[in-house]
């Protein structure tokens, strides 16, 4: 039985290591989505990332400690001739300890999440507003402040370093708009308006995906976002037959 556990554990580790190596080798390093953990490019994404690391560090203790104790027990307390099992079966102090400590840890972990939720929920003053509409099986984007330019089934184009507030809804079933590098995901619900905001710090091409099952071609509802300079954005709007409003905060800034 001893050999069995060891052989099993070693082969398990071997397979997992091979798996990790294989997985790491794949992928195209240029596209933003393949960065191992999607480099955050918005204020929300940065906040979520640091909070996530904070949570991972705290919970890591509770992930590793039981495994260590478990394997210690497996190694240490084998049945053997002459060994007698212990007979204890309760210890009130210990039980209170492992009930109270996790509660305290959870409070420490949960409280900082509230300001983050508020930050996600309450956008700063918008530089521009857009509308995102989910539709089987494509995304429609509207720019009501720019001569009501409407595009569908092509990349969303937004300027860099501007606070973009998006009102989201759906024309038919539930969809969800998700771009991992922006740190945002929101359901688009028919008959309701939901809201997200992002302020992208770097120009580039960002990829996402519809994240709520919406029918046969759900998997084809890709999301692509082109983040461009202010000039490029204005050119693109005019190219699409839109207008740049004179009093618009975007134009003033640029």
């Amino acid at each position, binding site marked *: 039985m001893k050999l069995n556990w060891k052989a099993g554990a070693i082969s398990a580790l071997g397979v997992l290591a091979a798996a990790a190596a294989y997985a790491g080798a794949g992928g195209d390093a240029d596209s933003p989505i393949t960065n191992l953990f*999607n480099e955050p490019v918005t204020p929300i994404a940065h906040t*979520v990332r640091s909070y996530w690391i904070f949570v991972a560090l705290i919970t890591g203790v509770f*992930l590793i400690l039981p495994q260590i104790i478990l394997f210690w*027990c497996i190694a240490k307390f084998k049945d053997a001739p002459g*060994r007698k099992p212990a007979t204890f079966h309760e210890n009130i102090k210990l039980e209170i300890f492992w*009930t109270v400590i996790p509660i305290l840890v959870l409070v420490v972990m949960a409280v900082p999440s509230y300001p983050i939720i508020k930050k996600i929920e309450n956008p700063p003053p918008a530089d521009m507003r857009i509308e995102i509409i989910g539709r089987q099986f494509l995304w429609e984007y509207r720019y009501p402040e720019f001569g009501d330019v409407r595009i569908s089934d092509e990349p969303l184009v937004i300027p860099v370093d501007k606070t973009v507030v998006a009102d989201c809804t759906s024309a*038919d079933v539930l969809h969800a708009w998700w771009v991992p590098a922006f740190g945002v995901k929101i359901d688009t619900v028919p008959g309701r308006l939901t809201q997200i905001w992002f302020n992208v710090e770097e120009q580039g091409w960002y990829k996402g995906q519809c994240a709520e099952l919406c029918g046969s071609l759900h998997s084809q509802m890709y999301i692509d976002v082109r983040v461009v300079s202010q000039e490029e954005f204005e050119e693109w709007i005019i190219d699409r037959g839109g207008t740049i409003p004179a009093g618009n905060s975007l134009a003033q800034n640029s």
Partner: protein
Amino acid sequence: MSLLETPPPGSSAQPSKRPDFPETPHKAVRLPGGILGILSSTDHKVLGMLYLGLALIGAVFGGAFAGAIRAQLTSHDLEVLSPEFYNAMVTMHASVMIFVVIIPALAGFGNYLVPIMIGARDMAFPRLNAFSFWLLIPAGGLMAASFFVQGGAAAAGWTAYPPLSLKEYSGGPGVDMWILAVHLAGLSSITGAINFIVTVMNMRAPGMSLMKMPLFVWTWLVNAWLILIGTPVLSGAVTMVLLDRGFGTGFFKPALGGDPVLYQHLFWFYSHPAVYIMVLPAFGLISHALAAFSRKRIFGYTGMVWAVCAIGVLGFLVWGHHMFTAGISPELRLWFSFMTMVIAVPTGVKIWSWLATIWGGTIRFTVSMKFALAFISLFVIGGISGVWLANVPIDLQVHDSYFVVAHFHYVLVGGAVTGLFAGTYFYFPKMSGRFLSEKIGNAVFWLFILGMNLTFLPMHLVGVQGMARRIWQYREEFAAINHLISFGYLGMAASGALFIYSIIDALRKPKTCGNDPWGINDVQKSLVWDIPSPPPPYNFDKIPVLKGTASTGG
């Protein structure tokens, strides 16, 4: 040794409380044998094994559906299945695994073991018990038949979120049949739950107070309450979908003033507790296996009982964590977030208590024990990723991604299914009078554990990288990892096939087991290991009267 004590004459604890109940009922009643005997049986043991058999057949189908999903996802641009059929596979894999495999399998162990563990001769309502089981046959049959109707089986996900599940977007009768199947499975669960509650509250042997019941009985008692409170809400919610589909109502149609988010509230009010319905009895099973093969009593019995009760209560206060992206208010999200994290506390109590149970024991590494130990390790992983998901900012990022798929498979496969394996290897000698081969069992174990981790561990990674769940094709970047995941599936499939072979192989051998085939009852002091294997009809010649220290073991 015997747990039974001959009560002094005239003692109030005598079974004479039930004057018209024969002392040796199996000698007084003639039961029909053969197939007819099985089909017409109201014996809790026969029904328990029927449940387990149904679960095994269901697992073959559910596993095959998973195989179809993995075949499609092996690479990013395959067209092994049509997108419609792929969605049907995703829907039916979940529905079958939940309603025909895990819930019936746990009901099977509950049916078989609970009456024995509390010293009763059968469930309180044996006919209702048979009714509960036989309802599952048309439920499974409807799901199977729906593949052959126009438009194919339901493809709106097992969550069946409207508007996608409404007539406009899912035209054929597949979704209607799925809803009726859920109704039947739900009715089966509800009647079964009533039976368990009445049995445990009224039919415990003299001397078995609530706080002396084996933990498995406790987990099933709490479980039955969860089913009784939650399942009617699910039935109501899917009935509203049925009415919206066929009768012109507009509960979930925005155009008629309805609200799709309302459905999510109703659905998850059942379906979150359903996770605990699927895992609490598994907690019970592994508690007994861990104690038995460590030759110790379960550590912190009282704390364990309260932890199970706490999980049961808290389980009803957390459904909103499935809806963090649906646009509900920040304060409500914070509430659901915190309640969800609080569940980690009683769950943690159980983990620590299991570790304390094996601490200092003399551990025998039987296959059952290996599965029970693996349960601890895997369930901790699923639990911690659950705490991550409970945090709103993190959930907003990975909700509906493969990270979530990884999380709930660690809970349901690493937890419930691993627990069922531990329970099967542990109680098979009691149920059949024969041991399952430990040699084949070791292969089953290692294939399962390797396959399981190879399948679900990398899913965390692709989920964080941005792969959404329930997608038929995906971006090329995720192909390498998905290739591995599909490879892992083969390990689990091989393990399942070996397991079925092992059962058939064991059943062909003669019955050799005595009352206590594992040699554990000197410490465990359980009624289960105090009667023959397999137990005779009606279990006990005389209703047992328990001594003071019995019988928290199982």
